[in-house]
C-alpha cells in the first residue's frame, strides 16, 4: 500500500466507509502481531510492557505508511483504537457461539486443547466486557478505548469527543468501573 492509498483509506474510514474500515482493521491486526514480536525482543529488563506502548508502536508503524500531519496523530490513534476494540469484540462474538463446545477440527489435537482455552479466556472476557459497553453506551466505550488502547490524554479525548476534560474524567472512571466489574464477575 503506498502513501496516497493509505491517506485515502483514512479519509474513507473517516467518512464511514465500511469496506475501508475492514481494510484498516486488517492492517491494525496484522501489524499488531508483527510489532508485538519485535518489541518483545527489544524490551529491557525491569521495564514492564504496557498496552499503550504496544498500541502506539503498532500505530506508528501504520502511520509510517502514510503521510500523516502531526496534529492528526490523536485522530489516527483514536481510529486505530476503535479498530482494535472492534477486533476484540468480533473475536468474542465469534467465539461465544461455540464457547462451550470443543471444535471438532481440534478436538483430536490434545496440545491445541491444552493451550487454547485459558490463554484465550482473557481476550474473550475482555471482548465480552467491551461488548457490554458497546451495547449500552457508545460514549463510555469510546472514552475507554482512547485511554486504554490509544493512551490519549484527557485533553485529547475531550477534543475528540467535543466535551469538557472534567466530563472525560467522569466517563473514564465509569467505563473503568463497568469493564473491571464485568471482568471480575466473569465466571
Amino acid at each position, binding site marked *: 500500500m503506498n502513501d496516497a492509498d493509505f491517506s485515502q483509506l483514512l479519509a474513507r474510514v473517516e467518512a464511514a466507509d465500511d469496506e475501508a474500515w475492514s481494510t484498516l482493521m486488517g492492517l491494525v*491486526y496484522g501489524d*499488531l*502481531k508483527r510489532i*508485538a*514480536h519485535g518489541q*518483545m*525482543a527489544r*524490551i*529491557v*529488563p*525491569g*521495564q*514492564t*510492557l*504496557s*498496552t499503550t506502548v*504496544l498500541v502506539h508502536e503498532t500505530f506508528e508503524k501504520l502511520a509510517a505508511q502514510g503521510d500523516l500531519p502531526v496534529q492528526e496523530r490523536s485522530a489516527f490513534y483514536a481510529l486505530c483504537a476503535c479498530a482494535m476494540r472492534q477486533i*476484540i469484540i468480533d*473475536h468474542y462474538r465469534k467465539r461465544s457461539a*461455540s464457547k*462451550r*463446545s*470443543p471444535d*471438532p477440527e481440534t*478436538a*483430536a489435537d*490434545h*496440545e491445541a*486443547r*491444552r*493451550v*487454547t*482455552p*485459558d*490463554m*484465550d479466556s*482473557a*481476550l474473550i*472476557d*475482555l471482548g465480552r466486557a467491551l461488548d*457490554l459497553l458497546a451495547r*449500552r*453506551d457508545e460514549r*463510555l466505550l469510546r472514552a475507554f478505548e482512547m485511554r*486504554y488502547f490509544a493512551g490519549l490524554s484527557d485533553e485529547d479525548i475531550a477534543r475528540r469527543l467535543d466535551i469538557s476534560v472534567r466530563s472525560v474524567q*467522569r466517563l473514564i*472512571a*465509569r467505563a*473503568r*468501573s*463497568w*469493564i*473491571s*466489574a*464485568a*471482568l*471480575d*464477575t*466473569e*465466571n
Partner: protein
Amino acid sequence: MNGRRLHQLSPEAWRRLDDELDQLLEMDERERADRLKALARSRPADVPILLVLLQAKDSEETLEQRLLAALSHLAGQAAQEPGRRIGPWRLVRPIGCGGMAEVHLAERADGAFKRRVALKLLWPGLVDRDAEGFVRQERQILADLDDPRIAALLDGGVTDCGRPWLAMEYVDGLPIDQVCRLRDLDLAARLRRFIEVARAVAEAHRRLIVHGDIKPANVLVTDAGKVKLLDFGIGRLLNSHAQTDDTAGWNALTPDWSSPEQKQGQAPSPASDIYQLGLLLKSLTEDVLPASHHRRREIDAILAQALDPDPRRRTISADHLADDLTNLLAHRPVTSLRADLAYRTRCLIRRRWPALLLSIIALISGVAFLDHEFEQIQQLDERNAANEAVLVYLEEMLNLSNPQQTSERLHDSVDLLADAAAGLDQRLRDQPMARSRVLNTLGRIHQARNENLLAARRHSEALELAREHAIEDELDGALEGLAVAGIWGGDYARSEDYLRELIELRIKQGMPPPALNRARLQLADLLHSRGKYAAALDQAHAAHASAIDTGLSGRVLGMILRDLGHFDAAGQAFAASRTYETRRDSPAASRLSELSDHRAVLLLHRGEFAGARQAMDHSAVLRLGYLGPDWGGLVWTRHWYALHALATGDAERAASLLDTQSAEYASFFGESSHVLAFARSDRAYAALALGDLDTASKLFAQAGHVLETIQDGDHPRLAEILLGEALVALADERRNDARAAAERALGIRDRLPSDAAGAETWRANACRIVRFTGGRCANAQGGLDQRGLDSARLRFALEGLCRIAEQPSGPDWDCMSPPNDR
C-alpha cells in the same frame, strides 16, 4: 453476583445504575456510605451491583494487567522462533502464552538425553530484582518438591537479554475439568482424581510450599489418567515487587480462581490454596448428577467449609479435604456435615454393605434387617417409610453392579443379582409394586451388562406383575426394557409391538413430551433397522417436529433420510443434531461420537471418502476418551473403518476388520441381528474384491436370510446382497440366477423415492448389474454421480471377478466386455 447478571441488565436499569455510579464516584467516603444506605432501602437490588462497580474503581493495576494479557494473546506473542537455544534447551514449538510467560515445548539441544520440557520464558519486566538470584532461589525451593503428582521444575536460568526462564516437566494431558466432561466421568471418578490433587497440595504444604494459582488449567490429567499439577510456586515470581513483605501488594494471578483474601492483595497461603481447591471441586462436581440427594448434601457441606470466606474457618488442611472426600466415597460420615440421624443411618447401611450381601433378602423386605441393625436407633419406627427407603437404597446398591452407572464394580455382582432375583417372589409376595420395581431395576442392570436374555426375563416378569396389578409406572419401565432387550437380541417384531404399546401408554398417561419422543425415536430407529423406512420417517418427523431433543431426533431422522437416498436432507438433519449437541451445557461425547459415525457413513455414500475418514477418526478419538483405552465392549468404529477401506479399494483391510466386527456383533446381538447381516454383506463384498467366491457366496446367503426374516417384505438393503449374489452367480456361470437376483435388487431399489439423488445412483448401479447379467434395463442414467460407496463396492467386486476370469481355470466369461454393458 455473577457476570451474567451484569450482561442481562435492561438498558433502563443500566442507565439508572450508570447515573447513580457517576454520582457515587464524585462523592467522598462518607457521602457515599450514606447514599448507599439510602439506596438499600429504596432500591435494594441495585446495591450489590453498585458495590461491585465501586470496588472495581480502585483496580487500575489489575485492569492494566488484564488488558495486557488479552492483547498479548491477540498479538500471539510467540516471539521466540523454534530452533532457538535457551540454556541447554532448543525450542521446538510454542505451546502457549499468557500474562506471565510464553511457553514452548523444548528439548535438549546437545541431545545428551531425550527429554522434552515445557520451557517458560517470562516476559521481561516481571522480575524487578536480581533475576538470576531469584531463579536460583526458586529452583532451590522447588527442588525439594519431589512428588509424582507435581510437574517438576527441572532447570532454570536467565537469557542473554535478562529474561528469566524455567524448564518444567512437560505434561501431555488435558485440564482436569475438560477430561471429566469429555470422558463423561461419573462423580466417584471425578472425586478420586480430585483427591489426588488435594493430596499433592497437602504434600507441598508440609514442605511449606504454596501453589497460589490452583485452577483447572494448572491441573492436567494425562492419557494414562494420572493427575499432574503445573506451576507449583511459580506465582511467587510474578509478585516479585512484594519481595519479603508477604502481607500486601500481591496481585491475584487469576481473579476468578482466587480466594477473597487474595483478591484483597494478600499473599497466597495454604488457606488460599484450600479455597482454590474448593473452587476446583465445585467446578468438577456441579455438572454431574449426584447419585442421590444425600450425597449432594455431603458434597455441599464439604464445599461450604472449603469455600468459607474467612480463612480461619476454612477446612484446616488439604489432607482434611481429601479425607472428607475419601470418607464420602467409602460411605463413612463426612466431618463437614452436621451428622443427623438419617444421614448416619445411610452411612451405616452403606459401610456394612459387603457383610449385608448375604442378608439381601432381609434387606428387601426390610423388617428383620431393621430390627436387627438399628437397635439403637429408636426413631426409625415408621416402618413403611423405612421399607421405601430401603427399596430406594437397594436400587442404588444394585446399580453399583451396573457398569453404565459407575466404575465401582462389585466383584461378586453376578451373585448379588442372582440372589436378589431368586428371593423376590417369596419375600416380596404381597408387594407387587416393590417387586416389579426391583425386577425392572434388575432388568436394566442385566441390559447394561449385555445380558439380553436375563434382562428380557426380568422385564417380562415385571410386565406380568404390572399388568396384573395395573401399576402403570412399572408397566412403562417393563415395556421399554423389553423393547430394548428385543432390539439388542434381534427380536425386532416383538420389540416393535412393545414400543407401540409404550407410545400409547405414554400418550394415555399424558407423559411429558420428552418421554413420548424418546419412545417414538426408539420406534423410528427400530423401524429403520427393519427396513420400514416410510413408517420410520413418520415417527422421526413427529419427534423432530417437537424440537425437544433435536440432537437425538436429528440423528435418527438423518440416518433414515440417508438410507432413503435423500443425502442433502440427511446432511441437514445431522447438522441440526450437531448444533443442538454442541450447544448443550456439557456436550456428551457419546452422542457426538454416534453422530459423527452417522455423518461418516453419509459422506461415504456421497463419495467424500477423506471427509468420511476424518469423521470416523473424530468419533474414534471421542470414544477412546470416554470409554478409555481398556474398553472391552463393542467397538462400532471398526465397521465404519471397514466400509472406508472397502470404498477405497483396500479389500484386505476391510476383510480383516469385518471378521473381527462380525464376531463381536454375533456375541453382542446374536445371529439374527441386522448389523451382523450388514457386516457379513460388506465382508462378502470384500471377498468378491479379493476373488474369494466361496466366502462371498456363503456370507451373502447368511446375510440375506437374516434380512428376509426381519422384514415381512423386502428390506431395502437386501438389494446390496442380491447384487452381490448376482455377481457370484455370474462368475459361477449361472447366468439365469444372476439375472433373477439383479432384477429383484432393481425392483427393491425402484421402490425407493424417485426424487432422491442417492437412490437414483443406487438404481442406476442395480440397472447396470442387470444389464451385466444379460437382462434389460431401460432407465440406466448416464452422467450420474458414481463416486459413492455403493458404486465403489461394485466396481472393486467386478475387478476382483475380472482377475478370476483371467486365470486359466477361471470361468469362460469375458469381463472386459460384459453383455449389454455398452
